[in-house]
């Protein structure tokens, strides 16, 4: 994933705006590698996984759930909620939130 070239570069807000449009979700097919820029809402280790949740400005929900790849702890520990982070990962789809797996910090 570290060397994967994203197919799309988007802000967290634009991503959610697109997903909420009637036909928007169709434009974002699952398995696309996307680079997202957004403010951190939460960092947690639920299920023994390092997860970063990106906040969408002006909305409590939906958020963007990023399941981080192993080896990202040292990069993530420098960040706190409200910090801006650029993450790339594989888009899996949307439930109540957009879900990304295999995420890595793209740049700070």
């Amino acid at each position, binding site marked *: 994933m570290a060397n994967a070239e994203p197919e799309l570069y988007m802000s967290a807000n634009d991503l959610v705006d697109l997903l909420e449009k009637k036909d928007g979700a169709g434009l974002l097919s699952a398995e696309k590698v996307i680079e997202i820029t957004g403010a951190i809402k939460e960092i947690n280790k*639920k299920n023994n996984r390092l*997860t970063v949740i990106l906040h969408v400005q002006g909305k*409590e929900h939906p958020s963007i759930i990023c399941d981080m790849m192993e080896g990202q702890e040292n990069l993530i520990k420098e960040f706190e909620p409200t910090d801006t982070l650029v993450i790339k990962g594989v888009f*899996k*789809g949307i*439930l*109540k939130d957009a879900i990304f797996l295999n995420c890595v910090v793209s740049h700070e």
Partner: protein
Amino acid sequence: MGKLLPFLVLIAFNGFGQVATKSIARQGHVSFFSYTSVEHIKAENNQVLSIVDSTTGEIAVSMLMNAFVFEKALMREHFNESYVESDIYPKATFVGTIMDFDPTLEGEQTRMVEGRFNMHGVTKELQIKTKITRNNETFILSGTFETLVRDYEIKIPPLLAGNIAKTISVDFNFECMPYEN
């Protein structure tokens, strides 16, 4: 999902005609195991959505099939492309009721959850023994059940039949926090 979505919306907007107390898990955990003499297969999904209405005991669960993580990439590929066909059936859902649920009870209670599980386009009635632990405002639902691969019309090629168990063991754990719109 077409049938689940209105239910989720109903829960979210107190549509049951009473003051509902909703809890949500956005990072619920579901794993399944297949044990055979040839191969052991385990997969985990850590982004399972679950909403519980503690007033009515109703529960809705939704998960993306392509968000299961496997030890080997080839297992994941076979699972998504050949078995569950996640491009055609991207989600699995469960809609049910926790029987005799007492949301005021602190600590543990074990209850049966009855409902309909839909996967791979097939819906089956399930009864699942579930441990529910209340810790202040958080409900943790956990349990294990077994299910037959053939019940969901999942076709295993004869060549790989020995690699996949006929009965799959499923574990789940949902830590549901208070949910406000």
